[in-house]
């Protein structure tokens, strides 16, 4: 129930609330957010709702086409792969690997990146200049190339891929946090708490963070769509998840030699990746659009 308004007062919603208020006015963005939440739920609870186990082989049902096909079987809705594993179950469980892990990686990279970025924004001189140069170097390298090189050092494997992608994403967050903080520091409202005698840290936490969090979230959605694509790409190249795991990229790699006789084994995982990335991008696009609208008003 909304609060009764006793006094005539103007309420200023916090920046993040303002973002939400403009965000929810675009239908496409809300749909994308709905799908995003659905994917998150699938990633968490996916293993409880799958009709079959993702690893279970059914040797009587090798390469069953999807159910809408004449040879299909309704209990295997999206067909089976060459080992008789149910595609639908594998895709659902793959959500937690490709999509869920990408969220985890982005959150970790965000926390570390924001911390380092804040420290670097508060320091000046040689250290800060060295850091910007270093960031320039790292940022001008494509993320996947860097990830491939880090995997080359650490050796193939899903955990190593996650480390690599996390390491690659951190510089982006450092860069964006640092620039955003620098930009806010020039503004007048930051001066007031400083004049009140607040410490630099307090100014940062109470005044600056609430005003830059929207930019960081937008960067996070961009980073996540890159992370999904990178996890899947490395899985596809055989550098990531082992073959047995239902990771979307490695599922696609498995189906490479089957895709003429059983095209559904390759187009379904690809579609899953595509949908996950589009949904993430649409949420990010919606956020960016509402931020732009706010600036214009």
């Amino acid at each position, binding site marked *: 129930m909304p609060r009764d308004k006793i006094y005539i007062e103007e309420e200023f919603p916090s920046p993040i609330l303002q973002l939400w208020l403009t965000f929810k006015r675009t239908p496409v963005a809300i749909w994308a957010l709905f799908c995003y939440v659905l994917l998150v739920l699938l990633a968490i609870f996916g293993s409880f709702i799958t009709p079959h186990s993702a690893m279970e082989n059914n040797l009587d049902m090798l390469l069953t086409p999807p159910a809408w096909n004449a040879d299909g079987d309704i209990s295997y809705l999206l067909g089976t792969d060459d080992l008789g594993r149910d595609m639908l179950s594998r895709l659902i469980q793959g959500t937690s690997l490709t999509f869920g892990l990408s969220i985890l990686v982005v959150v970790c990279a965000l926390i570390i990146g924001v911390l380092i970025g804040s420290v670097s924004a508060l320091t000046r001189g040689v250290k800060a200049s060295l850091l910007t*140069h*270093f960031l*320039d*170097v790292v940022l*001008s*390298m*494509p*993320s*996947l*190339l860097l990830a*491939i*090189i880090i*995997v*080359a*050092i650490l050796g*193939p494997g899903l955990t190593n891929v996650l480390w690599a992608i996390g390491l690659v994403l951190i510089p982006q967050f450092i860069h964006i946090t640092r620039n955003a903080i620098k930009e806010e520091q020039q503004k007048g409202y930051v001066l007031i708490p400083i004049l009140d005698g607040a410490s630099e840290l307090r100014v940062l936490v109470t005044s600056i963070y609430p005003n830059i969090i929207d930019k960081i979230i937008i960067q996070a959605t961009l980073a996540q*769509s890159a992370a999904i*694509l990178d996890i*899947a*790409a490395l899985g*596809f*190249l*055989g*550098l990531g998840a082992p073959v047995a795991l239902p990771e979307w*990229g490695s599922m*696609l790699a498995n189906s*490479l030699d089957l*895709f*003429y006789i059983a*095209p559904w084994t*390759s*187009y379904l*995982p*690809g579609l899953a*990746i*595509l949908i996950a*990335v*589009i949904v993430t*991008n*649409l949420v990010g*696009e919606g956020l960016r659009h509402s931020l732009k609208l706010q600036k214009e008003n």
Partner: protein
Amino acid sequence: MVLFALRRLNLLLFTLLMLSVVAFSLNYFFPGSAIVNITGLVNATDAQLASYEKLYRMDQSVFFQYLAYLRELFNGNMGVSMSTQNPISEELITYLPATIELSLAALLLAMIFGVPLGFIAAIFHNKVTDKAILSVAMVGYSLPVFWLALILILVFSITLSWFPSSGQLNLLFEIEQVTGFKLIDILLSDSPYRWQAFQDALEHLVLPAITVAIAPMTIFIRLARTSMLEVLESNYIKAARAKGLSNIKIIYHHGIRNALVRIIRDMGLQFANLMTLAMIAEVIFDWQGAGSWLIDSIFQRDYTAIQGGLIALATFTFFINILADFIYASLNPVERYTRHATR
């Protein structure tokens, strides 16, 4: 302009130095002994290794080791590949041109289609055309490149059999390698069938180039759209409109030129992205380039090759970045003062 150039070159130098430090430290991060990782001589005798240890000053401190490493790097000595025992620099000269050829073809495709589409979207801002182009761009941006490659092969080479699905050239043609760029090599050769070979090479190029081009193309669409929108908002366009120029004339004479300049700035960054996409496409299309070579060497734990590939690919992307910056600065005088020169 001189100051600008000096600043940029300074940054390039610093960057390359950082890169060499990273590459050098890899020798210690990779499993195995450092001298074997530097030289790649896995089957060498102790005496041979001892002489190389002297060359790389392994008995001295890390700093002198690094200097020795730099000296050998500048001499073009990157060690030998652990798996084939061929010098890395020779392997790079064989494989890198194919990657560059593929990337350039894709860049060309992406720009030819992306930029005009972006302009069209900007001209019909907030209309159906704009929204349609933007939604297509969103889908294209989200397409996983390896999946796109598979779909293209399935449709165009298996079902329709219009284009070949793998390789760079039909094995029937025997073309001597001169530059490593297949198309140039074919034109240079004196084979009587070179025009057929040329056509065949082009057919092999189509699918990989489209695969690599789609994602950068969508980025070009967005870039072209934003920059055209910005230009159309500016005062000189309003002045031209006040003079009574028609819309087509305004866009042709003032809009396109000014909008194109801004796109060139981002071309360099896009090229780095393109090289990565090309690496994956090479694996799928069995394209004999540096990307598939690098990924193979990861599987074979060929540490010298990984190092060499890293240095070569990164240096190349940096050079392209700088080149794009220079072209941009020479086309747009305003930028010379605002960007790296005065700050």
